[in-house]
């Protein structure tokens, strides 16, 4: 399985569609303070199934929908897609039928989140099997959010084990 691209529609500041190719080696993401880089990181954790609003710096999960700006009206939904290349057929059963996997998460105001894999609805926990299988996932050591190194450094030993345990 190889992660090929991320597509963001209406998630936080990305009211216009944004596509991020995910290619071999090291890709840098740069830009001024407050322009959306960490929001992009949160979108990745979110589409993988992050369910705590605090982990996406929100009070309620609906807060990830574009809330409007001076020039644009608030959105009514947010959607993030993860495009996965499965040509090596290493995806777990239930996800291994196709050579390309499109995992999508969508949230609509007052309707909550739904997860879709290649067009069909899937349950959150089936999606967790997919990501656990490749050692990814919102709280794995594959996703290091801004400030997480400080949490590791400053936390008491028992809290630290918690911060990293999700990773094990």
């Amino acid at each position, binding site marked *: 399985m190889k992660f090929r691209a991320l597509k963001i529609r209406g998630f936080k500041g990305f009211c216009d569609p944004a596509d991020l190719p995910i290619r071999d080696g090291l890709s840098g*993401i*740069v830009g001024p303070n407050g322009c959306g880089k960490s929001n992009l990181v949160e979108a990745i954790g979110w589409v993988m199934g992050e369910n705590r609003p605090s982990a996406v710096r929100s009070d309620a999960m609906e807060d990830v929908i574009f809330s409007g700006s001076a020039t644009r009206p608030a959105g009514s939904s947010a959607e993030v897609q993860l495009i996965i290349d499965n040509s090596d057929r290493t995806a777990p059963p239930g996800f291994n039928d196709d050579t390309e996997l499109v995992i999508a998460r969508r949230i609509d105001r007052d309707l909550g989140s739904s997860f879709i894999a290649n067009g069909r609805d899937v349950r959150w926990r089936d999606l967790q099997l997919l990501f656990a299988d490749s050692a990814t996932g919102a709280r794995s050591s594959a996703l290091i959010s801004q400030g997480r190194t400080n949490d590791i450094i400053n936390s008491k030993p028992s809290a630290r084990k918690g911060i990293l345990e999700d990773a094990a």
Partner: protein
Amino acid sequence: GRERMLTAFETVNTNFKQLFSELFNGGSARLELVEGDDPLDTGLEILCHPPGKRFSTISLLSGGEQTLTAVALIFAFFMANPAPICVLDEVDAPLDDSNVMKFCSLMEKIVQRTGTRFLVITHNPITMSHMDRLYGVTMQEKGVSKMVSVDLTEAEKLAA
């Protein structure tokens, strides 16, 4: 359950010891499971001995030394279960130039070993210069995020 946790801990500890010495060009470190206030609640202590300095817990190191140690720990977990993607948000902020270069070399080595694709969010020009490509996020229109492609020379303007 407990067996598996201890085996995982041993793997991570072995990786951590090796990564620490690599990033610090020497010295040694180890992880220890410690009794929490609650005996069922073991904690994770990080003991470090940077080269030429004294042995201490992570809390007594300098800001950059602490971050470099945390990087060793994060990748120790990562290498125990390598994933196809690894996303790091501004991990390099407290590092001096030579430690930033060590951080980048380590990521390059991981790419060679596991084929992992890295997404590295950074403000640091040295990190940017080690990337294979750069993507920019801008907010020309207030409150509206937009992705743009960037070449290395433009990166300086973009990071501002």
